[in-house]
C-alpha cells in the first residue's frame, strides 16, 4: 500500500486479516463511507462540512472562561490598542501549532499521549501527562468558575450552575457517538459569537480599531509587570497543551486520513478566524471600562465584568456578555474533560473513543465525568480562592506550553512515523520561533515575579 511506503515506521502497524472489529471501527467506517461518497461526487462543500469539527472545536473551546476574562481584563486595562493585533498574532500561532496535530493524527491514527509514550518511553511520557493532567484539572476548575459566575449574574445559585455544567458534560457523552458529540459541541460553540453583538453595544470606533491593527498601538502605561502578565495570559488564552492532545485525538476519532488534511487545515483556519473575532469582540466590549477609568483588578469573574458593563453597554449588552461567559465555560468543560479522557485512556492503553459503548469505554467516560465532578466540587468549596486561580491558570498554561511544543515538534519531524507529512523547514522555523518566544516570555514572567520592582507597575 502506497501510504505505508511513505511512512516506514507505520508499515508494521496493520491489522491482521480477520481481526476483531469494535463498535468504534463500525461507526467510524460508516462516517468514512459518507466522506468517500462526497469526495467521489466532488461535492466539495458537503465534504468540508463532514470533515470540519476538531479545528473549530479546539479553537472555540480555548475561548473559555479564563480566556474571555483575560481578553476582558486586557480591554478594560489597555483599551483598543496594542493587544488587538497581538491577539490576532496569537491565533496565527495557534493555527501553526494545531495544523501540526492534524498531520500527526492523520498520518499515525494515534493520539498525542500514546505517541509520546510509544516513541519516547514512559519516563518522558509520564512527565508530559503530569503537565497535562495538572493543567487540565486547573483549567476545568476555572470553567466551572465561569459557569457559576455567569449563573450568579442571573441570580442562579452556584450549586445549580455547577450541577448544570456537570450535567452538560455527562449528557454530551450519553450518545456514545463521536459525530453526535462533535456536532452538539459545535452547535453550542457558535454562541461564543455572543460577544460580537455585545461589542456592538459598546459602539466601537472603527478608526481606532484600524489604527491599532496598523500601528500596534497605543500602549498606555508602557511595558510593566502588568503588561507582561497580560501578555502571558493572552498567549495562554490561545495556545495551551490540552489543545494539542484534544485535536490530535479528535482527528483520529473522526477518522481523518492524509487525503483529508486540506480540509483539516481549513477546519483549523475557520476555527482560528471565528475564535479571533470572538476574542477581539470581548476586548472591544470591555474597552468602555478603560475609557471610564474603572479598576478591574478586584473583579472575581466574568460576571463582575457583565455587572460593571451594564451601565455602559445597557442591560442587553451585559446580558449577552454574561451568557457568553456561561457558554465559554460549558463548551470548554466538554472539550477539556474529553481531552483528559483521551490522554488518560491512551496512557493506560485502554480503548479511547467517543464511539465506544459504556462497557468498553468505562475508564474513558469515567475520566471525563470524574474530572468534571472534582472541578465542580472545588468551585463549591466556601472561600476557595477563585479569583487568584482564574488569573493564574492561563499563566500556568503558557509555561507548560513550551515543553508540550517541544514534544510536538519532535513528533512531527519524526520521519519514521510521518513519512512525507513531516514538517518542512518553514514549519520548523515557525514552530521553533513560537516555542522559543513562549519560553522567553515565561522566563520574563519568572524574573518580574521574583524581582517585582524591575519593570515598575
Amino acid at each position, binding site marked *: 500500500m502506497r501510504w505505508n511506503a511513505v511512512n516506514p515506521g507505520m508499515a508494521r502497524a496493520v491489522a491482521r486479516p480477520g481481526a476483531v472489529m469494535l463498535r468504534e471501527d463500525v461507526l467510524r*467506517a460508516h462516517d468514512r463511507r459518507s466522506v468517500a461518497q462526497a469526495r467521489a461526487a466532488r461535492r466539495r462543500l458537503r465534504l468540508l462540512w463532514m470533515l470540519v469539527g476538531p479545528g473549530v472545536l479546539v479553537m472555540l473551546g480555548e475561548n473559555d472562561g479564563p480566556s474571555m476574562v483575560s481578553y476582558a481584563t486586557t480591554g478594560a486595562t489597555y483599551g483598543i490598542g496594542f493587544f488587538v493585533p497581538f491577539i490576532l498574532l496569537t491565533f496565527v500561532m495557534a493555527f501553526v501549532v494545531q495544523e501540526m496535530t492534524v498531520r500527526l493524527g492523520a498520518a499515525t491514527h494515534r493520539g498525542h499521549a500514546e505517541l509520546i509514550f510509544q516513541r519516547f518511553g514512559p519516563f518522558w511520557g509520564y*512527565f508530559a501527562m503530569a503537565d497535562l493532567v495538572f493543567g487540565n484539572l486547573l483549567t476545568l476548575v476555572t470553567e466551572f468558575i465561569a459557569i457559576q459566575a455567569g449563573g450568579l449574574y442571573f441570580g442562579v445559585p452556584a450549586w445549580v450552575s455547577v450541577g448544570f455544567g456537570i450535567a452538560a458534560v455527562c449528557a454530551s457523552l450519553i450518545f456514545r457517538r463521536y459525530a453526535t458529540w462533535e456536532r452538539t459541541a459545535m452547535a453550542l460553540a457558535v454562541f461564543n459569537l455572543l460577544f460580537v453583538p455585545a461589542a456592538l453595544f459598546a459602539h466601537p470606533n472603527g478608526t481606532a480599531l484600524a489604527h491599532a491593527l496598523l500601528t500596534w498601538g497605543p500602549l498606555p502605561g508602557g511595558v510593566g509587570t502588568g503588561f507582561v502578565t497580560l501578555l502571558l495570559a493572552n498567549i495562554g488564552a490561545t495556545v495551551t497543551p490540552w489543545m494539542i492532545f484534544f485535536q490530535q485525538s479528535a482527528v483520529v476519532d473522526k477518522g481523518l486520513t492524509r487525503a483529508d488534511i486540506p480540509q483539516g487545515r481549513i477546519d483549523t483556519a475557520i476555527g482560528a478566524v471565528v475564535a479571533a473575532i470572538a476574542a477581539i469582540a470581548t476586548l472591544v466590549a470591555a474597552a468602555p471600562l478603560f475609557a471610564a477609568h474603572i479598576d478591574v483588578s478586584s473583579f472575581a469573574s466574568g460576571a463582575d465584568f457583565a455587572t460593571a458593563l451594564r451601565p455602559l453597554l445597557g442591560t442587553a449588552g451585559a446580558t449577552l456578555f454574561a451568557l457568553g461567559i456561561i457558554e465559554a465555560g460549558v463548551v470548554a468543560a466538554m472539550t477539556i474533560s474529553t481531552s483528559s479522557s483521551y490522554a488518560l485512556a491512551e496512557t493506560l492503553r485502554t480503548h479511547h473513543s467517543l464511539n465506544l459503548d459504556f462497557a468498553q469505554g468505562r475508564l474513558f467516560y469515567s475520566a471525563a465525568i470524574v474530572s468534571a465532578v472534582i472541578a465542580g466540587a472545588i468551585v463549591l468549596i466556601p472561600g476557595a480562592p477563585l479569583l487568584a486561580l482564574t488569573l493564574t491558570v492561563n499563566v500556568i498554561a503558557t509555561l507548560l506550553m513550551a515543553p508540550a511544543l517541544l514534544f510536538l515538534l519532535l513528533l512531527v519531524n519524526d520521519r519514521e512515523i510521518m513519512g512525507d507529512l513531516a514538517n518542512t523547514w518553514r514549519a520548523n522555523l515557525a514552530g521553533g520561533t513560537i516555542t522559543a518566544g513562549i519560553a522567553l516570555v515565561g522566563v520574563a514572567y519568572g524574573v518580574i515575579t521574583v524581582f517585582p520592582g524591575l519593570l515598575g507597575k
Partner: protein
Amino acid sequence: MTRPDDPSEALDPTQLTAATSLPLPRRRLGRGVTLLLVLMRVYVLVALPIVGYAFVRALLGGS
C-alpha cells in the same frame, strides 16, 4: 466478495483498532534531543514554584 458494511473496506488498514493497539517502536533519542527534553523539564520545575509563589502572594493581597 466483501460485505458492503465491512469496516475494513471503508477504513485504512492502519486505522482499525486492531492495528492502532499495536505499539510503535521506541525511537533512539540523541544527546541533543535528550538535552532539550531535560532543559524543558528544568524550565517547568523552576517555573511552577514561581507561579505558586505569585499565587500565594496574590492570595495574601500582594503583600
